[in-house]
């Protein structure tokens, strides 16, 4: 064989090995996004839950709910959504940067807190990092979304008509799909301008849409049903917790 032939063969082998390597790294990244982040997020959630439970056990629960002022990165509430699976719950962290969302659903800083007039807005991952909001599109009008704080429970209901399953109807729909830049969904009154005063106590969940993509956002709006249920009255949660 000629020397030129050897060079060509070596060059082609190098290209082949490079392509195999790139393919392997890309596959490994998919494994990372789909499985490894679940494990890491699971550990982070366990730690947050334990910390929060310990903190709450230490504090005495008064008759009137004490105002909460969470620091960014700190867990301050539990979200219970029976419609996402039996016993589904996650510790909610203050803040929506990647660091916070890697641990669990994150509360948009500056939006209302649980039970307050305005919009308690929470973002969460759809796929990867424990996939907290994977099945958010399965929630139907009237499904309960329960927020548990240090001394009270708040029951929100997905907006829309439970009889027909139609999300539209009221001024605020129960579910919608919007562009990532549509910040009006987390306004004090959802879909209104940010400066419009709140017209009720809303809860909004945001995640990416469609699954495995970040092209759009899936939004679920809910509204507070009744007032806070003090922990002293319902140590194991309100009846809505058993629905779904």
């Amino acid at each position, binding site marked *: 064989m000629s020397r030129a032939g050897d060079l060509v063969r070596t060059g082609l082998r190098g290209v082949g*090995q490079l392509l195999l390597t790139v393919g392997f790294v890309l596959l*490994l990244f998919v494994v990372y996004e789909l499985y*490894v982040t679940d494990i*890491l997020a699971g550990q982070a959630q366990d730690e947050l839950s334990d910390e929060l439970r310990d903190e709450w056990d230490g504090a005495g629960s008064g008759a009137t709910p004490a105002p909460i002022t969470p620091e960014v990165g700190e867990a301050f509430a539990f979200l219970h959504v029976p419609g996402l699976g039996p016993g589904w719950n996650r510790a909610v962290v203050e803040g929506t940067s990647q660091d916070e969302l890697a641990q669990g659903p994150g509360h*948009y800083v500056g939006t209302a807190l649980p039970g307050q007039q305005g919009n308690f807005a929470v973002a969460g991952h759809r796929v990867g990092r424990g996939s907290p909001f994977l099945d958010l599109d399965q929630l139907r009008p009237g499904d309960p979304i329960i927020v548990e704080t240090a001394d009270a429970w708040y029951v929100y209901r997905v907006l829309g008509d439970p009889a027909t399953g139609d999300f539209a109807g009221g001024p605020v729909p129960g579910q919608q799909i919007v562009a990532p830049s549509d*910040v009006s969904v987390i306004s004090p009154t959802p879909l209104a301008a940010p400066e419009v005063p709140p017209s009720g106590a809303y809860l909004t969940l945001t995640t990416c849409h469609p699954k495995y993509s970040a092209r759009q*956002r899936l939004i679920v709006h809910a509204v507070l049903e009744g007032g806070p249920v003090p922990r002293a009255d319902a140590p194991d949660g309100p009846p809505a917790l058993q629905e779904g």
Partner: protein
Amino acid sequence: MYTWIWRHLPGGTGSKAFCALLLVLAVSALLLFVVFPRVEHLLPFTDVTVDQ
């Protein structure tokens, strides 16, 4: 590159294969637990918030 590594691994074919497997696992672990966590926030796959 792989040819060069294979030539420099010690022992016979069995020992070479075992060392090669160890190398692959080490590189995979490095990617999964060190490299990917640092680079993924530069990618858009994990955006779930609404913002301007």
